């Protein structure tokens, strides 16, 4: 204990007025950065995504192959056969949809529905740290895990959700639960996040998203589950996100 105090004092004397952020609590933004990183906000990642939607008792599946980099992504639907070859491309907050039947890529809104409660925008990694202003609320327990709770208010017009209530695990620094609200303030869906995968970032093992369960707030029986395969990390070239090369890949 004495050594620790001595070390702190010495460091203060040596480094003078240098910021000592570690002596303070994490800022909401720093927490959101960590939570974003656990949901794919990386240099490059490739994974397979299965979306299972149960709506009015009817089950629908979608399987996608996704390459993403930051919040950009290229997603091609692989199954079921009726949607095979459909493509979603998101570059710099511009989203396009292309299908083998309509050869022309069409600009689409991230609000447009993919399947069940999942919108096109839900495939993208989150960038809550940049896109939202976070107001901290009182900590809460979620499944026995103590969580920071934030009221996120969009600071940009081009984000999919205007307001989000977001629970971030204090221990793991990952988002574990979220509620999404319309501009009018009505809750329209909620989500639970699971992190069974791990990646190494800066030589540290980090939990990484493995499942998102989206619950429709208006129709309680409607549940959409997004299951992510083990991520393959690596650089994704610019050409993978190029619109001119898109149509060669709609098979």
């Amino acid at each position: 204990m004495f050594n620790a105090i001595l070390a702190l004092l010495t460091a203060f004397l040596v480094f003078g007025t240098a910021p000592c952020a570690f002596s303070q609590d994490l800022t909401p933004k720093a927490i959101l950065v960590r939570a974003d990183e656990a949901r794919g906000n990386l240099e490059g990642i490739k994974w397979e995504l299965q979306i299972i939607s149960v709506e009015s008792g009817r089950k629908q599946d979608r399987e996608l192959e996704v390459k993403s980099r930051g919040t950009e992504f290229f997603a091609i639907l692989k199954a079921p056969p009726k949607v095979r070859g459909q493509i979603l491309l998101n570059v710099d907050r511009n989203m396009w949809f292309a299908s083998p039947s309509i050869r022309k890529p069409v600009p689409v809104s991230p609000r447009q529905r993919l399947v069940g409660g999942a919108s096109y925008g839900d495939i993208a990694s989150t960038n809550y740290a940049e896109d939202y202003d976070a107001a901290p609320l009182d900590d809460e327990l979620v499944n026995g895990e103590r969580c920071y709770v934030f009221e996120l208010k969009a600071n940009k017009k081009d984000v999919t959700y205007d307001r989000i209530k977001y629970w971030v695990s204090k221990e793991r620094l990952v988002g574990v639960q979220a509620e999404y609200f319309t501009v009018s303030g009505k809750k329209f869906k909620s989500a639970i996040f699971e992190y069974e995968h791990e990646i190494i970032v800066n030589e540290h093992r980090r939990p990484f998203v493995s499942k998102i369960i989206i619950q429709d707030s208006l129709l309680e029986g409607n549940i959409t589950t997004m299951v992510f395969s083990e991520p393959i990390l690596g650089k994704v070239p610019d050409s993978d996100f190029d619109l001119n090369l898109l149509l060669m890949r709609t098979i």
Partner: protein
Amino acid sequence: MVKPPLCVLRFALLSVFSLLFSYGGFIMICSAENNGVSSKGGSASKKESGNIRILEIAVLDTREEVKGSDENTREEEPNASSLKTQSDLWKEIGEGFSYTFRTLGYGTFNSPSDSTQNPNNDFLNIPRYTLNLDFRPDISFNFRPLTLVVKPRLDLTWKRWEKGAKEGDTDTDNDWYVNEWLAGLNLYSGLFVYYGRENLQWGPSHFVSPSNPFFPYNNQANPKIELPGMDFARVVWVANSSWTASLIANLGAGRMMFPYGFERTYAAKLDYTGNQKYGSLIGSYQENNRGQLGAYGGWWVSDALLLYTEGSISKGSNALYPQKDPNAPFGIQMIPTKDDSSTPEGLLTVGGSYTLEGGATFSLEYFFNSAGYNDNEAALYDDLREDAASAFYAPEPWHRLSKATLIQTLEPRLRFLRRNYLTLQYVQVEIHDVLNLTLRYTYNVDDSSSMLVPIVEYDIGDYFQVFVVGDQRFGSKDSEFRSLIDYSYMVGVEFTF
């Protein structure tokens, strides 16, 4: 200034690091917050990319471990390693193949309009009923820098006529062809070359693509009918995530029909993608014709609202205009009066779309066609068509002259006859996960004719989809949109595996 003794500094640094390491996760945050700082070991450097923090990462992937163990084995057992390499190669080749096999069976009910363009349906012979069975396999092969795509087609058609010279006739046809094929090579980093038969489409407009010098129309009016491919050679250079340049040469007509003959067209295209906006500039030249400058751009005002524009401009136009000529057989002649004109002629689309929180998207587009007919020209055009239609059943040479004139009035080298159009579109997909709905209404402001295109797709299971694609025309008998049909409805089933 008195320097602190070295041992004190060393002690202080060691103490600080020991404290920081006890807050392992915290180090990461501090590292990420400081621009350009690399943490020790060099493997945890950090880059900035716009607003997004990107951390270089080490991969926790068991495959890497497997690879490592393979490398060890390679040193000890070269033959086993060679077999393994061959096996990996075949696996890679196998994984490079992909296919989709679509089969469409559909019936179409047409009502040919009783217009001067198609007197008693004897000029165009539009069948009343058609039944089609189309086999559409799409096969692709990707192996490292190589891309090969082929889309062979087999169309079986049965037709029945109930109006015109072929009334009561039926006919069957089978057509084998390759609608699209492509060979592509990634030469170097972002540099790609392609040659093949393609259907190149771009631009944000729903109604028509004014910036596209190759394909005047897109198949959004009926996504179940494929547009014929044309032969292209392309070089695409992806400079970075924002800029791409393409050189495109349209070297052959492919399967496209050109009533006045095919001419080669060359284009250079420059694309930009920026934060919430995109744009493209297309310069093109058609042999024995003229140059054209096209452009399109879009801006996402919010995640729901998109504003876009698309257009093209050229010096003069090769469109045919009706001109009074006392020496012409019908007193009026179709002449390319603006062929040598230096007046700029253009096409322009301005539009916007708004997506509701539930996913429904509404779009509104205005399309301006400066080369289109004004009221006087339209009146002359109508007169010419009427005279030509009247002479259609007259003896030769009048019948031949009538047909030649009706070909010109059908294809006057204008994308649309008039100048001002409005399109309103509603799209909602995945309604209850099974229903896609599109309603598109286009109104010709100049002659008040219009067309309504409803597209309904309903999924049955994972393989089947039933669909209805309609085309209902409104307006006076000889207006633009009612010149050919009163309505057309296609009902069918699509099977995909």
